[in-house]
């Protein structure tokens, strides 16, 4: 499936990259589903109110808060952990690309990848507070 002059290292990298994306999505969906079942069992009968914007409580808006809640098996935090895993999948993909470009000693692409990674990490860590 790959071009005649293509680096076998590139081909292997594309396979790993494809698997990384697939497993990231599957893991995230599984966690979201598991948290969702418990969330619906506990709160399924309560009324919904999303017509007015209130914003999420603090514990569900940071990676640290969500991980703490999920470890305490709070169902809404487990669903939110699924969301975090989904956000982490592209970030892991960029880290993966960074390693590949470093190995190829491709300086322009190493710098570009570092920039993209910095924006993603900044957004998740400080985004709403900046």
């Amino acid at each position, binding site marked *: 499936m790959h071009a005649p002059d293509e680096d076998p290292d590139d081909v292997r990298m*594309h396979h790993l990259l494809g*698997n990384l994306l697939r497993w990231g999505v599957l893991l995230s969906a599984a966690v979201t589903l598991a948290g969702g079942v418990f969330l619906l069992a506990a*709160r*399924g009968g309560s009324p*919904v109110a999303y017509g007015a914007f209130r914003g999420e409580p603090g514990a569900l808006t940071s990676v640290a808060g969500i991980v703490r809640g999920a470890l305490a098996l709070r169902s809404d935090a487990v669903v939110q952990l699924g969301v975090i895993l*989904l956000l982490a999948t592209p970030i892991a993909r960029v880290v993966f690309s960074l390693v590949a470009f470093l190995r190829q000693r491709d300086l322009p692409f190493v710098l570009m990848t570092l920039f*993209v990674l910095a924006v*993603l990490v900044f*957004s998740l860590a400080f*985004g709403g507070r900046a």
Partner: protein
Amino acid sequence: MTILAFTLLVGCGAFLAGLLGSLTGLGGGIVIVPLLTLGFGVDLRYAVGTSLVSVIATSSGAAAAYVREGYSNVRIGMLLEVGTVTGALLGAYASGVLSPNVIAVVFGLVLLFTAFQSLQQRTERLAAASSPLARRLRLPSWYPTPAGHRHYEVRNVGLGAALMFVAGALSALLGIGSGVVKVLAMDRAMHLPFKVSTTTSNFMIGVTAAASAGVYLSRGWIDPVLALPVVLGVLAGALVGARILSRAPVRPLRVLFTSVAVVLAAEMLWKGVRGAF
């Protein structure tokens, strides 16, 4: 409505959006925001945050297959992501200060443009030679065709990256993948083959959406009760769509999806102009 009933109804809607989105190649994300706001009365900010998360799920799932098969140009994707993530971060901050009505009007216009674009015949304009910058960055590459591997050239890298900045900003502001702007930049400006531009665009959507979704998560725009049915529904719809793609009547579905998009666009515009958001 109870949370259980809401989850089931939104889940069915999201499933249909994901199914039609994957069968028509237009992506399901663009109808999620109208579905939530117009159909279920959800606040626009929650709708945008939730929609972005579902966009990451479908694009990462689809990109997994394309990358392995060698269609996506990972180097071009990485380069253009510099533009999309910068635009996305600015778009995320802009959405915090703009009125939801302004966002709704922009949404309606982009949705109309997407519908119009989907009915146009796409023409492939392959370039005979790459620009010096594209050559220096080793962007020209190969892609698989039934007749073996074909080489392609790359032009206008700077213009492509500038258009990607716009695509990133729209993605953040509206909670969509902006595939339509991305494909425009890669087809028209950079002269890439369709297969390459479509799959590379898809490859980039996850990273672009993650850049603004992080901001929305920490700003409290992403709610677990909304994310649950939307993410799982769209993802399931997209998976089923990919399975039945070869047997589905794609053209009539495309007309159907485009008609739905036009109606939703009109309603978003109308409500936005009246200040009803």
